[in-house]
């Protein structure tokens, strides 16, 4: 039987793993881009590239590569 530990107080219930340094950096930069540059996909791609936060292949982001990567990370 599963033991019942009371109380259950778990900060992180949606994570599947501790975020990597790359994920933390991307998340923090995304928040900054959303705050300062806007909420359109074009703003996001421009904002990330302007801040030198690179796509997984090491190059600049495109709308395509951002969509694919954020889908992998946010699924």
């Amino acid at each position: 039987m599963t033991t019942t530990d009371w109380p259950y107080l778990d900060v992180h219930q949606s994570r599947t793993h501790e975020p990597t340094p790359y994920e933390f950096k991307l998340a923090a930069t995304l928040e900054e881009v959303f705050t300062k540059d806007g909420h359109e996909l074009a703003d996001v791609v421009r904002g990330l590239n302007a801040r030198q936060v690179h796509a997984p292949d090491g190059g600049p982001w495109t709308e395509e590569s951002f969509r694919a990567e954020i889908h992998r990370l946010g699924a």
Partner: protein
Amino acid sequence: MTTTPTADHIYATGLRNQWHPVVPSHFVAPGAMRKVTVLGEQWLLFRRSDSTLSMLADRCPHRGAPLSLGKHLGDRVACWYHGVEVETDGTVSSVPGLPGCNLEGKKLVRSLPVREVAGAVLAYFGDEQHPEPAELTLPEPLTDPGIDAILCYAEWEGGWRYAVENLLDPMHGSFLHHESHTMFDGDTTAKFRIRETDRGYFFEKTDQRGVNFDWVELCRTGVDWVDLSIPYPASAGPGGPFGIVGMVCPVDENRTGVFFWRYRDVQGWERDSWRFLYKTLIEKRHWEVLEQDRVMLEAMPADADQHENLYQHDLGVVRLRRLYRAEAEAQAQGQAVSRNL
């Protein structure tokens, strides 16, 4: 074991004849069992390897040992004490010590109707007069495929009603959560009104919407839940405010399980961005806000509601108590009457 519950007992341990959330689904893996307390009673959640879930009274029909100490046999549980085997519908399938014993084939253990919804187990707790499950209409934010919802579950010391009252008290957002990432803004004075709906009522500010925790809807649709919306800062990206569907599990008089689904109307890359930010950064901030509620509610004295001086902002709470108190009285009355027939 069968005494008629008083209205006070029902009021303290949770209303009957409706659905309640129990625990998150993942608390019971395929092939596993879990002991849970709900409405002050002991239950066993039992999941077969094909994921079918059942909920049985945690009490062996032989001499009352907890079935949760027993053995999972795939499609039944064997009591540890003398080996009596009980099927998932509560039927005794075998008495190994005395084959052919007349307990065999009898449905002697109570089993509750269960449903799994958006990552949580819901169960129907009927009294003797209402064994058939009440019609259940699920919260739209949890069934709408265009809306993304993420469950947060926590266990708090304190009675269930304080947890619901906290949700029917939007004004606490501007004070208790003033330092939070979402509720720093808006007026610290407000006028509220109650607006009736066909499933409950809104308790809402008359003069501000979309700035802080400005409104809440209590919904009674077979299960009790609240819906509310809280604005996100620009950093959370596109998609506007996030909503919360809240439900409460009355564990016993002094313990409560809280279920909060944070939901947002987002699709495509916007959804993926929110989920990514949520997991990486936002979930922790939401948690800190929830901890403020827990600290406050757990510190409330047991007799807090005996020495109050309420004002206009507490109308939502007053209305809630009246509703629940009346229902507790009616349920106790109904059971007492049927016993004396």
